[in-house]
């Protein structure tokens, strides 16, 4: 650490100016980040809102080159894809968190933690080629493979969120239950988990908000689909992120308009859910610490 020269020597003014300059730079940086968010959201809202109508939300996808159409199949497909992914990732993630925090010896817990962290840092395009190579290469595309990919995206998020709240459950609660003669599994299921439930739910909602916008894991496994609403995940499912990607690559300005409107639907869902979840999380944390 460098030592500070604290003698005045008439440099006070310069020091204060440097200080003020640093403060202004920090302020500008923060404003710039907020401004970028504002500009992106504003661009999407401005261009998307003019397209948005009840018809756009409820109609089937336009056939190639045709005007009009809607995105009902995309909304249904995205919901199914993310729903199945959540059904896989949430119980698994919660179980892993219980194992590392309540059962596993410290060394094993740390090893599992490393794996979860690595999974969290895994580029989504790697997940994409993995599910493509395992489930789709040589077979037709299907929604399930996409859900598996999204589940891999969600799993570390759910695990981490659960671990964080489990660590907030006071050990006095655990010890109290154990001292009353409750067994380990009863303690976990009836004392620890219920008081962590709020955090688990919001963590899962955040993971859903993240997964619904993930494009890469779906790109190779569910990107060639019918233009009508599909319910069967064993076939390729239309979905919002891939369609935005395809429309953004198109040269037809009408497709760009559709991309903006779909992006608006997606971004509203993502931002509203993640904001609400964050608020709820902050609140449940405060309650638990108190």
């Amino acid at each position, binding site marked *: 650490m*460098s030592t*500070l020269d*604290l003698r005045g020597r008439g440099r006070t003014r310069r*020091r*204060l100016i*440097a*200080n003020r300059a*640093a*403060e202004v730079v*920090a*302020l500008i*940086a*923060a404003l710039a*980040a*907020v401004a*970028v968010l504002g500009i*992106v959201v504003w*661009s*999407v809202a401005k261009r998307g809102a003019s397209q948005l109508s009840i018809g756009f939300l409820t109609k089937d996808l336009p056939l190639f080159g045709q005007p009009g159409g809607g995105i009902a199949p995309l909304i249904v497909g995205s919901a199914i894809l993310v729903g199945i992914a959540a059904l896989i990732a949430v119980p*698994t993630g919660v*179980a*892993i968190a219980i*194992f590392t925090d309540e*059962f*596993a010896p410290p060394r094993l817990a740390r090893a599992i933690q490393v*794996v979860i*962290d*690595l*999974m969290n*840092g*895994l*580029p989504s*395009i*790697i*997940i994409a*080629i*993995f599910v493509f*190579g*395992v489930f789709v*290469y040589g077979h037709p595309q299907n929604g399930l493979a996409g859900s598996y990919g999204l589940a*891999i995206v969600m799993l570390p998020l759910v695990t981490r969120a659960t671990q964080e709240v489990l660590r907030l459950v006071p050990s006095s609660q655990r010890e109290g239950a154990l001292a009353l*003669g409750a*067994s*380990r*599994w*009863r303690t976990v299921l009836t004392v620890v988990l219920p008081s962590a439930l709020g955090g688990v739910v919001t963590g899962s909602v955040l993971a859903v*908000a*993240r997964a619904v*916008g*993930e*494009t890469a894991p779906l*790109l*190779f496994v569910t990107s060639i689909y019918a233009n009508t609403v599909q319910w069967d995940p064993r076939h390729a499912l239309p979905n919002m*992120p891939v369609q935005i*990607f395809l429309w953004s690559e198109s040269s037809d300005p009408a497709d*760009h308009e559709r991309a903006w409107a779909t*992006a608006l639907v*997606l*971004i509203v869902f993502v931002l509203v859910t993640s*904001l609400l979840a964050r608020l709820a999380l902050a609140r449940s944390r405060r309650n638990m610490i108190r």
Partner: protein
Amino acid sequence: MSAVTAVERLGHGRRLRDRFGDRALFGLTGLASLAAILVMVAIVLKVFGASRLAFDKFGLAFLWGRVWDANIDVYGALPFIFGTLVTSLMALVIAVPLAIAIALFLSELAPRGVGGVVGALVETLAAVPSVVLGLWGILVLGPFAADHLEPWLHDHLGFIPLFSGTPQSSGIFIAGLILAIMVVPIVASVCRELFLSVPDELEEGALALGATRWEMVKGVVLSSSKPGIGAAVMLGLGRALGEAIAVTQVIGAGHTIQWSLFATGDTLASRIAGQYQGAVSKMQVSALFYLGAILLVIGLLTNLGARLIVRRFDPHRVGAD
């Protein structure tokens, strides 16, 4: 003694049930953990296994091969390794100073309420799906950069090869900007936690000795957070290296190595994503997996590197994230 007899007085059935319950929960949760480990192993095995065909044909020379041509079935990764490094570096050069400044604003400068709101907004930036950011990048940022930013850089800094090319609305420069936007929230939120964890006594000590706020930040906050900042940068780098979708949308799918930032290019991730319409031959599919294997190795090393930096320099801060 009395506790032992109390336990023994418990019903035999209940003890059995509890033993079974404990084992069952242990088993189930352990199984879930095992499944996660197996998935991770399967990913590594699959990515490497499927790149076998290309590896057998091109060997390690794939890493410095400059040709990517599906017509003659010859593939090389150098342009994409180059593109990955250039875009990621550009993103870091822009994003890291910005993110540190933001984190300082949030942790040292902003009043509580303002800091909370701005912090939440910065984190919201990370929640914007990459495909939406890419859409904005190709339709709004790209044309804007081609009309205003790039000509300005070209006119004033054109003597540097990086800024010498012809401005265009898709290319490495736009990709770097988009990646910077993605990296900022990650680095900023990690740095904010770091700066907040600097003990108040140290900060107050510096202030009490007459340091200005900036001198205190420089001498105490930044210097004691160095390893953590290093780890945060590695995390940001991992994000930038691996982003596929938004980069594919804005980078223009070039396959040559050029020094101009305005030229089109491709990264490892975006080259893979760009082939979504289907590869022509088995060799091409395998070459894509080979690109994935390179990316996987770089990504894992970056992640482990971040952990190592934190471990090695500051054992007390391991749990800081």
